[in-house]
């Protein structure tokens, strides 16, 4: 006789809590007015909040949207508080810096396309084919934002193909490692020297391109988003590689990763930005004029990846060793087990930390104002220096703060959505 174990085959459906155990009134009774002292504190706090709100509103609710200078606000007896005209008057500058007006459709289009490009990354129920656009998007964005000949970005993109083909061809001849090294080296050479030469020739023959815009014209939120989004998109994969490197059995890889992480984490971002603005050109071959924004992006990425690596290492450490063993025991190789088993779980554990880093990175882009780039905070100083708006403070900072808050709050909500979606237990 065989004993049938009793196992429930269906889950019980969830049931609502009994009536009288839910609702606003009950919540208030329990949390705000549970005792006399508690009730007094609640009422006092409520009064304070309402008063503060009223003061803020009476300052903010002003018919000042149309004024074109601070003195106009001050002379108008109807305006007794905030002078919002500055936002209206300088809106364009706060968004685009000194990017020429007629070309501003380009960053706008780049922004909209960016939303399309990140959508399949953020929501995995969208068609996977959309990923191709996400891959091409960075090159498209460079063409749109900086303009100039389209050949430059295209040839950079071609570099990947060159490296890949070289690897495939050499793989059979010299083996895995050597082929890899040669391919990487050749690709780097191509990017450093080949691209600019060939691009010049090609644009001589077929001049297609957009009006070139210098980096110094970039500014406002467009600049913050350019630096922030590039930093975010690059720092995650680099952080993952560094975290894996730190765990590696191979001494050299481990040492390099640990050294990099500890070195970068020990230095303030502002120092790295100064290095980007002043020092970096010393190390590059003479004559190469390396775009300042690109240098800043590199530094911000380096900085953020070091932090990212540590956040992800936390996730890796939280995984029970049984997960590695089960993957090994099934015969998965290192990269398969990392990609299919370890990373999905480690990243899921680290979502709060990762998104926290993203938010930090995005806000840290305001530091570029110190090396003279005109991000929103840098622009505030510029606007304050103009004769029209000399002396204005709160309105600008409030506006900039609110814009940043919208971006960061969106990220934070998304991370909560993602955590919820990835929950696989009840």
């Amino acid at each position: 006789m065989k004993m049938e174990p009793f196992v429930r085959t269906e889950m019980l459906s969830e049931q609502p809590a009994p009536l009288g155990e839910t609702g606003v009134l009950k919540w208030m009774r329990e949390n705000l007015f549970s005792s006399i002292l508690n009730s007094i504190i609640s009422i006092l706090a409520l009064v304070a909040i309402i008063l503060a709100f009223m003061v803020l509103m009476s300052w903010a609710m002003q018919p000042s949207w149309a004024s074109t200078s601070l003195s106009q606000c001050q002379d108008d007896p109807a305006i007794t508080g905030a002078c919002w005209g500055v936002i209206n008057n300088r809106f364009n500058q706060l968004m685009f810096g000194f990017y020429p007006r007629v070309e501003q459709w380009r960053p706008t289009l780049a922004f909209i396309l960016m939303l399309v490009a990140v959508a399949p990354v953020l929501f995995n129920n969208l068609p996977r084919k959309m990923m191709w656009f996400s891959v091409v998007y960075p090159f498209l964005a460079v063409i749109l934002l900086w303009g100039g000949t389209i050949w430059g970005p295209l040839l950079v993109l071609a570099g990947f193909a060159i490296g890949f083909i070289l690897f495939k061809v050499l793989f059979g001849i010299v083996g895995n490692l050597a082929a890899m090294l040669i391919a990487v080296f050749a690709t780097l050479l191509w990017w450093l020297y080949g691209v600019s030469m060939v691009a010049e020739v090609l644009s001589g023959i077929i001049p297609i391109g957009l009006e070139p815009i210098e980096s110094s014209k970039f500014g406002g939120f467009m600049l913050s988003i350019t630096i922030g989004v590039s930093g975010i998109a690059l720092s995650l994969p680099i952080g993952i590689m560094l975290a894996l490197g730190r765990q590696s059995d191979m001494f050299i890889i481990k040492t390099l990763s640990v050294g990099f992480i500890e070195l970068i984490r020990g230095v303030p971002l502002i120092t790295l930005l100064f290095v980007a603005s002043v020092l970096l050109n010393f190390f590059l071959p003479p004559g190469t004029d390396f775009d300042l924004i690109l240098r800043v992006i590199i530094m911000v990425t380096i900085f953020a990846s070091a932090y990212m690596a540590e956040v992800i290492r936390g996730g890796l450490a939280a995984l029970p060793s049984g997960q590695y063993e089960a993957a090994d025991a099934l015969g998965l190789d290192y990269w398969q087990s990392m990609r299919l088993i370890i990373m999905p779980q480690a990243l899921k554990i680290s979502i709060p930390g990762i998104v926290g880093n993203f938010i930090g990175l995005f806000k840290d882009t305001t530091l570029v104002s110190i090396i003279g780039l005109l991000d929103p905070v840098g622009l505030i100083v510029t606007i304050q220096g103009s004769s029209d708006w000399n002396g204005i403070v709160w309105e600008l900072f409030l506006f900039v703060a609110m814009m940043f808050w919208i971006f960061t709050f969106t990220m934070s909500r998304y991370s909560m959505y993602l955590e919820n979606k990835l929950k696989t237990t009840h």
Partner: protein
Amino acid sequence: MSQPVKKEVDRSAMQVSDEVAIEIRNMNKWYGDFHVLKDINMTVNRGERIVVCGPSGSGKSTLIRCINRLEVHQKGDIIVDGTELSSDLKNIDKIRSEVGMCFQHFNLFPHLTILENCTLAPIWVRKTPKKEAEEIAMHFLEKVKIPEQALKYPGQLSGGQQQRVAIARSLCMKPRIMLFDEPTSALDPEMIAEVLDTMIELAEEGMTMICVTHEMGFARKVANRVIFMDAGQIVEQNEPEEFFNNPQSERTQLFLSQILGH
């Protein structure tokens, strides 16, 4: 701790052939200065069902984990299915895809459904087309009697069900040898039977198995050889009847009296 096996065991297909499945020669392993395994010699023929027992810390887990190189041995040879285990990654991957392993804590992948757990290795290691891999997976899930749970996540299953999924997951790779490391010791008593039944069915089909377990009922009915380990050495090995009724060494006698409770 061990419970009687109620299921009738059909021994007709359990045949030990002359072909050697695993050969271990003078194998030694250290953790730092600690000598965990000392001069292990052991040959497992195809079709053998071996139960390894011994006190905690005697090196049972370490021994079977050396067989698919979850642990690295420092001296001696281990030859699995004619392939010698060395640091050559190709050999290791080959052996791992032919040796299935079940762990005490199941180690299912919590972010994948039961079905995905089972199809993952066939798809990525064996390069089986997805559809075919799913058919194979459903076949083995039926065999362990939980096909209806295929689309759930491991966290939604009971311990016994999870361990049966873990067995199905290993079987999907069509292994020639199965290793079990205390597969029932993390389970509640009522779930132990369902997992043991699954293992018995596997044995009945002629699978070569090495099980570390304290389920002496299982050892008596299914094993053809019981190995007793202590302090990193194989102290005694024998057929189950002889082993239980007539243990040779004092250490075995002591261990058996403790575990069988007389």
